[in-house]
Protein backbone atom coordinates (compact mmCIF):
# COMPACT_ATOMS: atom_id res chain seq x y z
CA UNK A 1 0.00 0.00 0.00
CA UNK A 2 1.22 3.47 -0.81
CA UNK A 3 1.36 6.04 1.97
CA UNK A 4 1.50 9.64 0.80
CA UNK A 5 4.04 10.69 3.42
CA UNK A 6 6.72 8.43 1.98
CA UNK A 7 8.48 9.68 -1.15
CA UNK A 8 10.53 7.66 -3.67
CA UNK A 9 13.56 8.68 -1.68
CA UNK A 10 12.13 7.29 1.54
CA UNK A 11 11.43 4.03 -0.26
CA UNK A 12 14.97 3.87 -1.62
CA UNK A 13 16.21 4.43 1.90
CA UNK A 14 13.92 1.64 3.10
CA UNK A 15 15.72 -0.77 0.77
CA UNK A 16 19.06 0.17 2.30
CA UNK A 17 17.84 -0.40 5.85
CA UNK A 18 16.12 -3.64 4.89
CA UNK A 19 19.31 -4.91 3.38
CA UNK A 20 21.32 -3.79 6.37
CA UNK A 21 19.02 -5.79 8.63
CA UNK A 22 19.17 -8.84 6.36
CA UNK A 23 22.94 -8.88 6.00
CA UNK A 24 24.36 -7.27 9.12
CA UNK A 25 21.86 -8.26 11.82
CA UNK A 26 19.79 -11.34 10.95
CA UNK A 27 22.68 -13.73 10.18
CA UNK A 28 24.10 -13.08 13.67
CA UNK A 29 20.92 -13.17 15.70
CA UNK A 30 21.24 -16.79 16.89
CA UNK A 31 24.79 -16.18 18.08
CA UNK A 32 24.03 -12.86 19.77
CA UNK A 33 20.93 -14.21 21.47
CA UNK A 34 22.93 -17.14 22.81
CA UNK A 35 25.72 -14.85 24.02
CA UNK A 36 23.20 -12.52 25.69
CA UNK A 37 24.92 -9.54 24.06
CA UNK A 38 25.71 -8.13 20.62
CA UNK A 39 28.81 -6.19 19.59
CA UNK A 40 27.33 -2.69 19.81
CA UNK A 41 30.50 -0.82 18.86
CA UNK A 42 31.02 -2.89 15.74
CA UNK A 43 27.40 -2.72 14.58
CA UNK A 44 26.89 0.95 15.43
CA UNK A 45 30.03 1.90 13.51
CA UNK A 46 28.64 0.17 10.42
CA UNK A 47 25.37 2.02 10.89
CA UNK A 48 27.18 5.30 11.45
CA UNK A 49 29.08 4.85 8.19
CA UNK A 50 25.76 4.52 6.37
CA UNK A 51 24.37 7.59 8.12
CA UNK A 52 21.69 5.64 9.99
CA UNK A 53 22.24 6.87 13.54
CA UNK A 54 21.42 10.56 13.25
CA UNK A 55 18.88 10.92 10.47
CA UNK A 56 16.96 13.79 12.02
CA UNK A 57 19.94 15.47 13.71
CA UNK A 58 21.66 18.53 12.20
CA UNK A 59 24.16 17.96 9.41
CA UNK A 60 26.60 20.13 11.35
CA UNK A 61 27.11 17.21 13.74
CA UNK A 62 27.14 14.51 11.11
CA UNK A 63 23.39 14.00 11.09
CA UNK A 64 21.12 13.76 8.09
CA UNK A 65 19.07 16.88 8.75
CA UNK A 66 15.94 15.25 7.33
CA UNK A 67 12.35 14.88 8.45
CA UNK A 68 11.14 12.31 10.94
CA UNK A 69 9.63 10.09 8.20
CA UNK A 70 13.14 8.79 7.55
CA UNK A 71 13.32 7.77 11.19
CA UNK A 72 9.94 6.08 10.72
CA UNK A 73 11.38 4.05 7.85
CA UNK A 74 14.47 3.14 9.87
CA UNK A 75 12.45 2.00 12.88
CA UNK A 76 9.91 0.08 10.79
CA UNK A 77 12.64 -1.84 9.04
CA UNK A 78 14.57 -2.49 12.26
CA UNK A 79 11.34 -3.85 13.71
CA UNK A 80 11.32 -6.55 11.05
CA UNK A 81 14.59 -8.04 12.30
CA UNK A 82 14.72 -11.62 13.57
CA UNK A 83 14.89 -10.41 17.18
CA UNK A 84 13.77 -7.36 19.14
CA UNK A 85 16.86 -7.00 21.33
CA UNK A 86 19.23 -5.47 18.78
CA UNK A 87 16.65 -3.05 17.34
CA UNK A 88 15.82 -1.89 20.86
CA UNK A 89 19.50 -1.28 21.60
CA UNK A 90 19.81 0.76 18.41
CA UNK A 91 16.72 2.77 19.27
CA UNK A 92 18.26 3.55 22.68
CA UNK A 93 21.10 5.21 20.80
CA UNK A 94 18.93 7.08 18.28
CA UNK A 95 15.64 7.77 20.04
CA UNK A 96 16.08 7.42 23.78
CA UNK A 97 19.50 8.62 24.96
CA UNK A 98 20.24 11.41 22.46
CA UNK A 99 17.08 13.45 21.59
CA UNK A 100 17.44 15.79 24.60
CA UNK A 101 21.15 16.28 23.86
CA UNK A 102 20.37 17.13 20.24
CA UNK A 103 17.56 19.51 21.13
CA UNK A 104 18.83 21.21 24.27
CA UNK A 105 22.59 20.56 24.32
CA UNK A 106 25.12 23.35 23.75
CA UNK A 107 27.29 23.44 20.64
CA UNK A 108 30.28 22.15 22.66
CA UNK A 109 28.23 19.30 24.15
CA UNK A 110 27.00 18.29 20.73
CA UNK A 111 30.51 18.40 19.31
CA UNK A 112 31.76 16.22 22.10
CA UNK A 113 28.89 13.74 22.57
CA UNK A 114 26.44 13.90 19.68
CA UNK A 115 29.06 13.65 16.94
CA UNK A 116 30.37 10.25 18.17
CA UNK A 117 26.79 9.06 18.84
CA UNK A 118 25.90 9.75 15.21
CA UNK A 119 29.11 8.36 13.71
CA UNK A 120 28.77 5.20 15.79
CA UNK A 121 32.07 5.74 17.58
CA UNK A 122 30.35 5.84 20.96
CA UNK A 123 27.59 3.70 22.45
CA UNK A 124 24.96 5.41 24.60
CA UNK A 125 22.61 4.32 27.36
CA UNK A 126 19.68 6.12 28.90
CA UNK A 127 19.89 5.76 32.67
CA UNK A 128 16.64 6.77 34.34
CA UNK A 129 15.12 3.74 36.11
CA UNK A 130 16.34 2.65 39.53
CA UNK A 131 15.75 -0.40 41.69
CA UNK A 132 13.10 1.56 43.61
CA UNK A 133 11.84 3.86 40.88
CA UNK A 134 10.65 2.69 37.47
CA UNK A 135 7.14 3.87 36.74
CA UNK A 136 7.46 6.59 39.33
CA UNK A 137 10.33 8.54 37.80
CA UNK A 138 9.85 11.30 40.35
CA UNK A 139 10.99 8.85 43.04
CA UNK A 140 14.56 8.43 41.79
CA UNK A 141 17.27 8.77 44.42
CA UNK A 142 20.56 8.92 42.53
CA UNK A 143 22.19 12.22 43.53
CA UNK A 144 24.53 14.55 41.71
CA UNK A 145 25.91 16.86 44.40
CA UNK A 146 27.58 20.12 43.54
CA UNK A 147 31.31 20.48 44.19
CA UNK A 148 32.62 23.62 42.48
CA UNK A 149 32.57 22.98 38.75
CA UNK A 150 31.87 19.28 39.26
CA UNK A 151 28.98 17.01 40.15
CA UNK A 152 29.64 14.10 42.46
CA UNK A 153 27.27 11.27 41.60
CA UNK A 154 26.14 8.54 43.98
CA UNK A 155 23.44 5.93 43.59
CA UNK A 156 22.42 3.15 41.25
CA UNK A 157 20.44 2.59 38.07
CA UNK A 158 18.64 -0.54 37.01
CA UNK A 159 17.54 -2.24 33.76
CA UNK A 160 19.91 -0.12 31.71
CA UNK A 161 19.99 -1.22 28.06
CA UNK A 162 23.52 -1.26 26.53
CA UNK A 163 24.63 -0.85 30.15
CA UNK A 164 27.64 -3.19 30.02
CA UNK A 165 29.11 -1.65 26.87
CA UNK A 166 28.10 2.01 26.88
CA UNK A 167 30.69 4.77 26.58
CA UNK A 168 28.25 7.42 27.77
CA UNK A 169 25.12 7.47 29.89
CA UNK A 170 22.43 10.09 29.67
CA UNK A 171 21.70 10.07 33.37
CA UNK A 172 18.78 11.50 35.29
CA UNK A 173 19.85 12.46 38.80
CA UNK A 174 18.87 14.76 41.65
CA UNK A 175 20.81 18.00 41.68
CA UNK A 176 19.01 19.56 44.64
CA UNK A 177 17.37 18.45 47.86
CA UNK A 178 13.87 19.04 46.52
CA UNK A 179 11.47 16.13 46.30
CA UNK A 180 9.26 14.81 43.53
CA UNK A 181 9.84 15.91 39.98
CA UNK A 182 11.67 19.08 41.03
CA UNK A 183 15.43 19.37 41.27
CA UNK A 184 16.50 16.76 38.71
CA UNK A 185 19.00 17.18 35.89
CA UNK A 186 20.07 15.23 32.83
CA UNK A 187 23.83 14.70 32.82
CA UNK A 188 26.11 12.96 30.34
CA UNK A 189 28.36 10.56 32.23
CA UNK A 190 31.41 8.99 30.56
CA UNK A 191 31.62 5.41 31.79
CA UNK A 192 35.40 5.53 32.10
CA UNK A 193 35.03 7.95 35.02
CA UNK A 194 36.42 6.48 38.28
CA UNK A 195 33.70 5.31 40.66
CA UNK A 196 31.42 4.03 37.90
CA UNK A 197 30.87 0.29 37.70
CA UNK A 198 28.55 -2.30 36.24
CA UNK A 199 27.18 -4.17 39.25
CA UNK A 200 25.55 -6.96 37.32
CA UNK A 201 24.23 -7.97 33.94
CA UNK A 202 20.59 -9.03 34.20
CA UNK A 203 19.33 -12.40 32.96
CA UNK A 204 16.09 -11.62 31.12
CA UNK A 205 13.04 -13.46 29.84
CA UNK A 206 13.46 -12.05 26.33
CA UNK A 207 15.43 -9.55 24.23
CA UNK A 208 18.37 -11.82 24.89
CA UNK A 209 20.72 -10.23 22.38
CA UNK A 210 20.55 -6.94 24.26
CA UNK A 211 22.59 -6.48 27.43
CA UNK A 212 20.74 -4.97 30.38
CA UNK A 213 22.61 -3.95 33.51
CA UNK A 214 22.50 -2.61 37.01
CA UNK A 215 24.92 0.30 37.29
CA UNK A 216 26.53 1.73 40.37
CA UNK A 217 27.89 5.22 41.05
CA UNK A 218 30.34 5.77 43.88
CA UNK A 219 31.54 9.38 44.00
CA UNK A 220 31.60 9.64 40.20
CA UNK A 221 32.89 13.14 39.35
CA UNK A 222 31.73 14.71 36.11
CA UNK A 223 31.98 18.34 34.97
CA UNK A 224 28.85 20.45 35.34
CA UNK A 225 29.46 21.30 31.70
CA UNK A 226 28.00 17.85 30.94
CA UNK A 227 24.54 18.86 32.18
CA UNK A 228 21.95 19.19 29.43
CA UNK A 229 19.81 22.32 29.77
CA UNK A 230 19.34 24.36 32.94
CA UNK A 231 19.79 22.77 36.36
CA UNK A 232 16.55 21.35 37.73
CA UNK A 233 14.94 20.89 34.31
CA UNK A 234 15.89 17.22 33.95
CA UNK A 235 12.46 15.76 34.60
CA UNK A 236 10.79 17.95 31.98
CA UNK A 237 13.51 17.23 29.40
CA UNK A 238 13.22 13.51 30.10
CA UNK A 239 9.44 13.55 29.74
CA UNK A 240 9.91 15.12 26.32
CA UNK A 241 12.55 12.55 25.45
CA UNK A 242 10.20 9.76 26.57
CA UNK A 243 7.76 10.82 23.87
CA UNK A 244 10.26 10.02 21.17
CA UNK A 245 11.19 6.78 22.92
CA UNK A 246 7.56 5.71 22.95
CA UNK A 247 6.99 6.55 19.34
CA UNK A 248 10.09 4.52 18.42
CA UNK A 249 8.88 1.55 20.44
CA UNK A 250 5.49 1.68 18.75
CA UNK A 251 6.90 1.96 15.22
CA UNK A 252 9.24 -1.00 15.72
CA UNK A 253 6.47 -3.05 17.24
CA UNK A 254 4.06 -2.53 14.34
CA UNK A 255 6.38 -4.05 11.75
CA UNK A 256 7.30 -6.74 14.27
CA UNK A 257 3.65 -7.71 14.68
CA UNK A 258 3.14 -7.77 10.97
CA UNK A 259 6.15 -10.04 10.55
CA UNK A 260 4.86 -12.42 13.24
CA UNK A 261 1.42 -12.59 11.64
CA UNK A 262 2.88 -13.23 8.18
CA UNK A 263 5.10 -15.97 9.58
CA UNK A 264 2.01 -17.51 11.10
CA UNK A 265 0.11 -17.34 7.80
CA UNK A 266 3.01 -19.16 6.11
CA UNK A 267 3.06 -21.79 8.80
CA UNK A 268 -0.70 -22.34 8.68
CA UNK A 269 -0.55 -22.76 4.92
CA UNK A 270 1.92 -25.59 5.27
CA UNK A 271 0.62 -27.33 8.34
CA UNK A 272 -2.20 -29.79 7.73
CA UNK A 273 -4.62 -31.08 10.33
CA UNK A 274 -7.72 -33.17 9.71
CA UNK A 275 -6.76 -33.41 6.06
CA UNK A 276 -6.52 -29.72 5.19
CA UNK A 277 -4.16 -26.80 5.73
CA UNK A 278 -4.72 -25.00 9.03
CA UNK A 279 -5.25 -21.73 7.22
CA UNK A 280 -8.48 -23.08 5.70
CA UNK A 281 -10.17 -23.06 9.09
CA UNK A 282 -12.38 -20.00 9.33
CA UNK A 283 -11.47 -19.44 12.96
CA UNK A 284 -7.82 -19.15 11.94
CA UNK A 285 -8.11 -16.91 8.90
CA UNK A 286 -10.73 -14.71 10.53
CA UNK A 287 -8.58 -14.30 13.61
CA UNK A 288 -5.55 -13.42 11.49
CA UNK A 289 -7.58 -10.84 9.62
CA UNK A 290 -8.83 -9.35 12.87
CA UNK A 291 -5.28 -8.93 14.07
CA UNK A 292 -4.12 -7.43 10.78
CA UNK A 293 -7.00 -4.97 11.02
CA UNK A 294 -5.91 -3.83 14.45
CA UNK A 295 -2.29 -3.53 13.39
CA UNK A 296 -3.38 -1.39 10.45
CA UNK A 297 -5.47 0.83 12.71
CA UNK A 298 -2.55 1.25 15.11
CA UNK A 299 -0.22 2.07 12.22
CA UNK A 300 -2.44 4.92 11.15
CA UNK A 301 -2.90 6.28 14.65
CA UNK A 302 0.90 6.32 14.81
CA UNK A 303 1.31 8.01 11.42
CA UNK A 304 -1.25 10.55 12.58
CA UNK A 305 0.93 11.23 15.64
CA UNK A 306 3.98 11.71 13.41
CA UNK A 307 2.16 14.11 11.11
CA UNK A 308 0.80 16.23 13.92
CA UNK A 309 4.10 16.24 15.82
CA UNK A 310 5.80 17.49 12.68
CA UNK A 311 3.15 20.21 12.51
CA UNK A 312 4.09 21.21 16.05
CA UNK A 313 1.07 19.81 17.89
CA UNK A 314 1.18 18.36 21.41
CA UNK A 315 0.52 14.66 20.88
CA UNK A 316 1.29 13.36 24.38
CA UNK A 317 -2.21 11.92 24.72
CA UNK A 318 -2.23 10.19 21.34
CA UNK A 319 1.32 8.86 21.63
CA UNK A 320 0.39 7.39 25.02
CA UNK A 321 -2.67 5.79 23.42
CA UNK A 322 -0.57 4.33 20.64
CA UNK A 323 1.98 2.98 23.11
CA UNK A 324 -0.76 1.43 25.23
CA UNK A 325 -2.42 -0.15 22.22
CA UNK A 326 0.90 -1.38 20.81
CA UNK A 327 1.89 -3.08 24.07
CA UNK A 328 -1.45 -4.84 24.38
CA UNK A 329 -1.79 -5.74 20.73
CA UNK A 330 1.74 -7.16 20.59
CA UNK A 331 0.82 -9.48 23.46
CA UNK A 332 -2.35 -10.55 21.70
CA UNK A 333 -0.53 -11.10 18.42
CA UNK A 334 2.27 -13.06 20.08
CA UNK A 335 -0.16 -15.24 22.00
CA UNK A 336 -2.33 -15.97 18.96
CA UNK A 337 0.64 -16.68 16.71
CA UNK A 338 2.15 -19.13 19.18
CA UNK A 339 -1.25 -20.79 19.55
CA UNK A 340 -1.62 -21.33 15.80
CA UNK A 341 1.88 -22.77 15.62
CA UNK A 342 0.88 -25.44 18.14
CA UNK A 343 3.82 -27.34 19.62
CA UNK A 344 6.10 -25.76 17.06
CA UNK A 345 5.28 -22.42 18.61
CA UNK A 346 6.77 -23.63 21.85
CA UNK A 347 10.13 -24.79 20.52
CA UNK A 348 13.12 -22.70 19.62
CA UNK A 349 13.36 -24.00 16.06
CA UNK A 350 10.61 -21.59 15.10
CA UNK A 351 11.16 -17.84 15.48
CA UNK A 352 7.70 -17.29 16.91
CA UNK A 353 8.81 -18.48 20.36
CA UNK A 354 11.39 -15.70 20.50
CA UNK A 355 8.81 -13.20 19.31
CA UNK A 356 6.51 -14.28 22.13
CA UNK A 357 9.23 -13.57 24.72
CA UNK A 358 10.42 -10.33 23.16
CA UNK A 359 6.97 -8.86 22.57
CA UNK A 360 6.14 -8.94 26.27
CA UNK A 361 8.43 -6.02 27.06
CA UNK A 362 6.48 -3.29 25.31
CA UNK A 363 3.74 -3.19 27.94
CA UNK A 364 6.38 -2.63 30.64
CA UNK A 365 9.34 -0.68 29.24
CA UNK A 366 9.19 2.98 28.26
CA UNK A 367 6.32 3.49 30.68
CA UNK A 368 4.01 0.59 31.52
CA UNK A 369 0.48 0.30 30.10
CA UNK A 370 -0.93 1.68 33.35
CA UNK A 371 1.30 4.75 33.13
CA UNK A 372 -0.02 5.35 29.60
CA UNK A 373 -3.55 5.05 30.94
CA UNK A 374 -2.64 7.62 33.59
CA UNK A 375 -1.45 10.05 30.90
CA UNK A 376 -4.63 9.62 28.90
CA UNK A 377 -6.72 10.07 32.05
CA UNK A 378 -4.85 13.25 32.87
CA UNK A 379 -5.52 14.70 29.43
CA UNK A 380 -9.17 13.67 29.76
CA UNK A 381 -9.38 15.47 33.10
CA UNK A 382 -10.44 12.32 34.96
CA UNK A 383 -7.24 11.54 36.84
CA UNK A 384 -7.94 12.03 40.57
CA UNK A 385 -5.68 14.46 42.42
CA UNK A 386 -2.95 12.67 44.35
Amino acid sequence: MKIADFTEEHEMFRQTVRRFVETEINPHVEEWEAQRIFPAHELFKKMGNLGLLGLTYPEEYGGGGVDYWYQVVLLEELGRADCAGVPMAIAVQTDMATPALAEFGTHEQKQKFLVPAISGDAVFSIAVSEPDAGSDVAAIRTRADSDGEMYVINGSKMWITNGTQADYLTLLARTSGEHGYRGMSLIIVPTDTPGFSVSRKLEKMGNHSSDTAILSFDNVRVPKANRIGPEGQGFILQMKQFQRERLAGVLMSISGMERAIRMTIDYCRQRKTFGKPLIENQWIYFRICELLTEVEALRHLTYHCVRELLAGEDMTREVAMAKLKAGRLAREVADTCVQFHGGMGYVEEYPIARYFRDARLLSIGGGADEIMLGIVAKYEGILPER
Partner: protein
Amino acid sequence: MKVVVCTKQTPSTTAVFTVDANGHVSWDDPGGKPNIVNPWDEYAIEEAIRLKENHGATDAIALTVGSEESKDALKTCLAMGCTEAILVSDSAFDGSDTVGTARVLAAAINKIGDVQIAVFGNRAIDGDTGLTPVQVARKLGWTPLTYVSAIKEISNGQITVERLLDDGKETVTAPLPVVISVVKEINEPRYPSFMGIRKANRATIPVWTAADLEVDGATGAEAAKVNWGHVYAPPPREGSVEIIEGETIEEKVRKLVDKLFEEKVI
Protein backbone atom coordinates in the same frame (compact mmCIF):
# COMPACT_ATOMS: atom_id res chain seq x y z
CA MET B 1 41.06 8.10 -16.62
CA LYS B 2 37.31 7.65 -16.76
CA VAL B 3 35.55 4.44 -15.88
CA VAL B 4 32.10 3.58 -17.19
CA VAL B 5 29.90 0.93 -15.63
CA CYS B 6 27.17 -0.43 -17.88
CA THR B 7 24.16 -1.58 -15.99
CA LYS B 8 20.57 -2.37 -16.68
CA GLN B 9 17.40 -2.53 -14.67
CA THR B 10 15.85 -5.98 -14.33
CA PRO B 11 12.75 -7.38 -12.64
CA SER B 12 13.35 -8.00 -8.93
CA THR B 13 14.45 -11.48 -7.94
CA THR B 14 11.17 -11.98 -6.04
CA ALA B 15 8.89 -10.58 -8.77
CA VAL B 16 5.90 -12.65 -9.84
CA PHE B 17 5.49 -12.92 -13.63
CA THR B 18 2.42 -13.28 -15.80
CA VAL B 19 2.51 -14.05 -19.49
CA ASP B 20 -0.70 -13.28 -21.40
CA ALA B 21 -1.99 -15.08 -24.49
CA ASN B 22 -0.11 -12.68 -26.79
CA GLY B 23 3.19 -13.47 -25.13
CA HIS B 24 3.14 -10.15 -23.30
CA VAL B 25 5.09 -10.39 -20.04
CA SER B 26 4.28 -8.32 -16.98
CA TRP B 27 5.40 -8.57 -13.38
CA ASP B 28 4.96 -7.15 -9.93
CA ASP B 29 6.57 -7.65 -6.57
CA PRO B 30 4.01 -7.60 -3.76
CA GLY B 31 6.72 -7.37 -1.08
CA GLY B 32 8.86 -4.65 -2.63
CA LYS B 33 9.90 -2.85 -5.77
CA PRO B 34 9.17 -4.62 -9.07
CA ASN B 35 12.44 -3.47 -10.69
CA ILE B 36 15.97 -3.47 -9.37
CA VAL B 37 19.54 -3.01 -10.56
CA ASN B 38 20.58 -6.24 -12.25
CA PRO B 39 22.04 -8.07 -9.21
CA TRP B 40 25.22 -9.06 -11.09
CA ASP B 41 25.84 -5.42 -11.85
CA GLU B 42 26.18 -4.50 -8.19
CA TYR B 43 29.64 -6.04 -8.31
CA ALA B 44 30.47 -4.03 -11.43
CA ILE B 45 29.24 -0.80 -9.84
CA GLU B 46 31.23 -1.48 -6.70
CA GLU B 47 34.34 -2.19 -8.75
CA ALA B 48 33.91 1.01 -10.76
CA ILE B 49 33.66 3.00 -7.54
CA ARG B 50 36.75 1.25 -6.19
CA LEU B 51 38.63 2.08 -9.39
CA LYS B 52 37.95 5.68 -8.50
CA GLU B 53 38.80 5.26 -4.84
CA ASN B 54 41.91 3.11 -5.24
CA HIS B 55 43.21 3.35 -8.79
CA GLY B 56 42.97 7.04 -9.52
CA ALA B 57 40.02 7.01 -11.90
CA THR B 58 38.57 10.51 -12.14
CA ASP B 59 34.98 9.49 -12.83
CA ALA B 60 32.85 6.42 -12.30
CA ILE B 61 29.96 6.89 -14.72
CA ALA B 62 26.90 4.64 -14.75
CA LEU B 63 25.38 4.06 -18.18
CA THR B 64 22.09 2.43 -19.13
CA VAL B 65 20.31 1.95 -22.42
CA GLY B 66 16.68 1.61 -21.47
CA SER B 67 13.36 3.23 -20.68
CA GLU B 68 12.71 6.26 -18.50
CA GLU B 69 11.96 3.95 -15.54
CA SER B 70 15.57 2.80 -15.64
CA LYS B 71 16.44 6.08 -13.95
CA ASP B 72 15.61 4.33 -10.69
CA ALA B 73 18.45 1.89 -11.22
CA LEU B 74 20.77 4.73 -12.15
CA LYS B 75 19.83 6.54 -8.95
CA THR B 76 20.93 3.48 -7.03
CA CYS B 77 24.30 3.69 -8.81
CA LEU B 78 24.64 7.33 -7.77
CA ALA B 79 23.58 6.49 -4.23
CA MET B 80 26.26 3.82 -4.04
CA GLY B 81 28.90 6.33 -5.13
CA CYS B 82 29.03 6.71 -8.92
CA THR B 83 29.97 10.25 -9.85
CA GLU B 84 27.56 10.56 -12.75
CA ALA B 85 24.77 8.63 -14.47
CA ILE B 86 23.60 8.75 -18.05
CA LEU B 87 20.44 7.25 -19.52
CA VAL B 88 20.29 6.52 -23.22
CA SER B 89 16.68 6.24 -24.30
CA ASP B 90 15.01 6.39 -27.69
CA SER B 91 12.17 4.47 -29.29
CA ALA B 92 14.60 3.73 -32.13
CA PHE B 93 16.38 1.37 -29.74
CA ASP B 94 13.28 -0.52 -28.53
CA GLY B 95 13.37 -4.21 -29.23
CA SER B 96 17.11 -4.29 -30.03
CA ASP B 97 18.91 -7.59 -29.68
CA THR B 98 22.24 -7.73 -27.90
CA VAL B 99 24.15 -6.54 -30.99
CA GLY B 100 21.86 -3.53 -31.33
CA THR B 101 22.21 -2.77 -27.62
CA ALA B 102 25.99 -3.10 -27.88
CA ARG B 103 26.09 -0.65 -30.77
CA VAL B 104 24.26 1.95 -28.72
CA LEU B 105 26.40 1.37 -25.63
CA ALA B 106 29.59 1.66 -27.70
CA ALA B 107 28.39 4.93 -29.25
CA ALA B 108 27.59 6.32 -25.79
CA ILE B 109 30.99 5.30 -24.44
CA ASN B 110 32.61 7.05 -27.39
CA LYS B 111 30.58 10.17 -26.71
CA ILE B 112 31.64 10.21 -23.04
CA GLY B 113 35.24 10.14 -24.27
CA ASP B 114 38.54 9.35 -22.52
CA VAL B 115 37.11 6.11 -21.08
CA GLN B 116 39.79 3.56 -20.26
CA ILE B 117 37.72 0.85 -18.63
CA ALA B 118 34.12 -0.18 -19.22
CA VAL B 119 32.92 -2.48 -16.44
CA PHE B 120 29.98 -4.88 -16.86
CA GLY B 121 28.30 -7.51 -14.77
CA ASN B 122 28.81 -11.07 -15.89
CA ARG B 123 25.25 -11.37 -17.17
CA ALA B 124 21.78 -9.94 -16.74
CA ILE B 125 19.28 -12.03 -14.75
CA ASP B 126 16.53 -11.52 -17.35
CA GLY B 127 18.07 -11.67 -20.85
CA ASP B 128 20.80 -13.87 -19.43
CA THR B 129 22.93 -14.06 -22.60
CA GLY B 130 26.15 -12.65 -21.16
CA LEU B 131 26.87 -11.37 -24.66
CA THR B 132 26.63 -7.63 -24.26
CA PRO B 133 30.12 -6.97 -22.79
CA VAL B 134 32.03 -8.81 -25.51
CA GLN B 135 29.90 -7.30 -28.24
CA VAL B 136 30.56 -3.80 -26.88
CA ALA B 137 34.29 -4.61 -26.78
CA ARG B 138 34.15 -5.80 -30.37
CA LYS B 139 32.33 -2.67 -31.47
CA LEU B 140 34.83 -0.40 -29.68
CA GLY B 141 37.83 -2.46 -30.78
CA TRP B 142 38.88 -2.87 -27.14
CA THR B 143 40.16 -5.99 -25.40
CA PRO B 144 37.42 -7.92 -23.58
CA LEU B 145 38.40 -9.45 -20.25
CA THR B 146 35.64 -11.70 -18.96
CA TYR B 147 35.05 -13.48 -15.61
CA VAL B 148 37.30 -10.99 -13.82
CA SER B 149 37.62 -11.80 -10.12
CA ALA B 150 40.28 -9.21 -9.19
CA ILE B 151 41.95 -6.15 -10.61
CA LYS B 152 45.59 -6.56 -9.68
CA GLU B 153 47.31 -3.56 -11.16
CA ILE B 154 46.85 -0.64 -13.52
CA SER B 155 50.04 1.05 -14.66
CA ASN B 156 51.84 2.22 -17.80
CA GLY B 157 48.71 1.92 -19.88
CA GLN B 158 48.25 -1.73 -18.92
CA ILE B 159 45.79 -3.55 -16.71
CA THR B 160 46.44 -6.86 -14.97
CA VAL B 161 43.45 -8.87 -13.82
CA GLU B 162 42.71 -12.27 -12.36
CA ARG B 163 40.09 -14.35 -14.18
CA LEU B 164 38.06 -17.00 -12.40
CA LEU B 165 37.55 -20.03 -14.62
CA ASP B 166 35.91 -23.38 -13.99
CA ASP B 167 39.23 -25.11 -13.41
CA GLY B 168 41.18 -22.38 -11.68
CA LYS B 169 42.38 -18.83 -11.93
CA GLU B 170 44.54 -17.08 -14.45
CA THR B 171 46.25 -13.72 -14.40
CA VAL B 172 46.31 -11.77 -17.63
CA THR B 173 47.60 -8.39 -18.70
CA ALA B 174 46.15 -6.28 -21.51
CA PRO B 175 46.67 -2.78 -22.83
CA LEU B 176 44.03 -0.18 -21.97
CA PRO B 177 41.31 0.55 -22.93
CA VAL B 178 39.49 -2.63 -21.97
CA VAL B 179 36.01 -3.97 -21.37
CA ILE B 180 35.79 -6.15 -18.29
CA SER B 181 32.94 -8.24 -17.02
CA VAL B 182 33.13 -9.22 -13.40
CA VAL B 183 32.09 -12.21 -11.28
CA LYS B 184 30.73 -11.93 -7.78
CA GLU B 185 33.96 -13.08 -6.15
CA ILE B 186 35.50 -9.72 -7.04
CA ASN B 187 34.12 -7.71 -4.12
CA GLU B 188 31.38 -7.17 -1.58
CA PRO B 189 29.08 -4.46 -2.96
CA ARG B 190 28.28 -1.65 -0.56
CA TYR B 191 24.71 -0.52 0.07
CA PRO B 192 23.60 2.92 -0.84
CA SER B 193 24.24 5.08 2.21
CA PHE B 194 21.70 7.56 3.49
CA MET B 195 23.92 10.43 2.33
CA GLY B 196 24.26 8.79 -1.09
CA ILE B 197 20.50 8.42 -1.43
CA ARG B 198 20.01 12.08 -0.62
CA LYS B 199 22.57 13.10 -3.22
CA ALA B 200 21.21 10.74 -5.86
CA ASN B 201 17.72 12.14 -5.55
CA ARG B 202 18.95 15.68 -6.02
CA ALA B 203 21.03 14.80 -9.07
CA THR B 204 19.69 15.22 -12.59
CA ILE B 205 20.27 12.31 -14.93
CA PRO B 206 20.81 13.42 -18.53
CA VAL B 207 18.94 11.47 -21.22
CA TRP B 208 20.70 10.96 -24.53
CA THR B 209 18.67 10.07 -27.61
CA ALA B 210 19.63 8.65 -30.98
CA ALA B 211 20.18 12.21 -32.20
CA ASP B 212 22.93 12.69 -29.59
CA LEU B 213 24.87 9.62 -30.64
CA GLU B 214 26.66 8.36 -33.70
CA VAL B 215 25.48 4.78 -33.60
CA ASP B 216 27.33 2.60 -36.06
CA GLY B 217 24.92 0.01 -37.46
CA ALA B 218 21.22 -0.71 -37.16
CA THR B 219 19.21 -0.92 -33.94
CA GLY B 220 15.66 -1.66 -32.88
CA ALA B 221 13.27 -4.54 -33.43
CA GLU B 222 13.50 -4.46 -37.22
CA ALA B 223 17.26 -4.88 -37.15
CA ALA B 224 17.27 -7.62 -34.50
CA LYS B 225 18.72 -10.80 -35.91
CA VAL B 226 17.37 -12.75 -32.98
CA ASN B 227 13.62 -12.57 -32.90
CA TRP B 228 11.55 -13.40 -29.89
CA GLY B 229 9.08 -15.44 -31.90
CA HIS B 230 7.12 -17.13 -29.16
CA VAL B 231 7.07 -16.19 -25.51
CA TYR B 232 5.05 -18.36 -23.16
CA ALA B 233 4.93 -19.59 -19.61
CA PRO B 234 6.04 -23.20 -19.25
CA PRO B 235 3.07 -25.50 -18.54
CA PRO B 236 2.71 -26.34 -14.87
CA ARG B 237 4.42 -29.55 -13.90
CA GLU B 238 2.13 -32.50 -13.47
CA GLY B 239 2.70 -35.17 -10.89
CA SER B 240 1.26 -36.76 -7.82
CA VAL B 241 2.46 -38.02 -4.50
CA GLU B 242 1.73 -41.49 -3.24
CA ILE B 243 2.64 -42.63 0.23
CA ILE B 244 3.47 -46.32 0.38
CA GLU B 245 1.72 -47.97 3.30
CA GLY B 246 2.81 -51.21 4.97
CA GLU B 247 3.19 -53.00 8.29
CA THR B 248 6.97 -53.23 8.24
CA ILE B 249 9.82 -51.41 6.54
CA GLU B 250 10.55 -54.53 4.50
CA GLU B 251 6.99 -54.64 3.20
CA LYS B 252 7.05 -50.94 2.29
CA VAL B 253 10.34 -51.35 0.43
CA ARG B 254 9.00 -54.40 -1.44
CA LYS B 255 5.92 -52.44 -2.52
CA LEU B 256 8.08 -49.50 -3.55
CA VAL B 257 10.36 -51.67 -5.68
CA ASP B 258 7.35 -53.33 -7.35
CA LYS B 259 5.93 -49.93 -8.11
CA LEU B 260 9.21 -48.67 -9.56
CA PHE B 261 9.35 -51.75 -11.84
CA GLU B 262 5.75 -51.24 -12.81
CA GLU B 263 6.40 -47.62 -13.79
CA LYS B 264 9.54 -48.72 -15.64
CA VAL B 265 11.72 -46.44 -13.49
CA ILE B 266 14.10 -49.37 -12.84
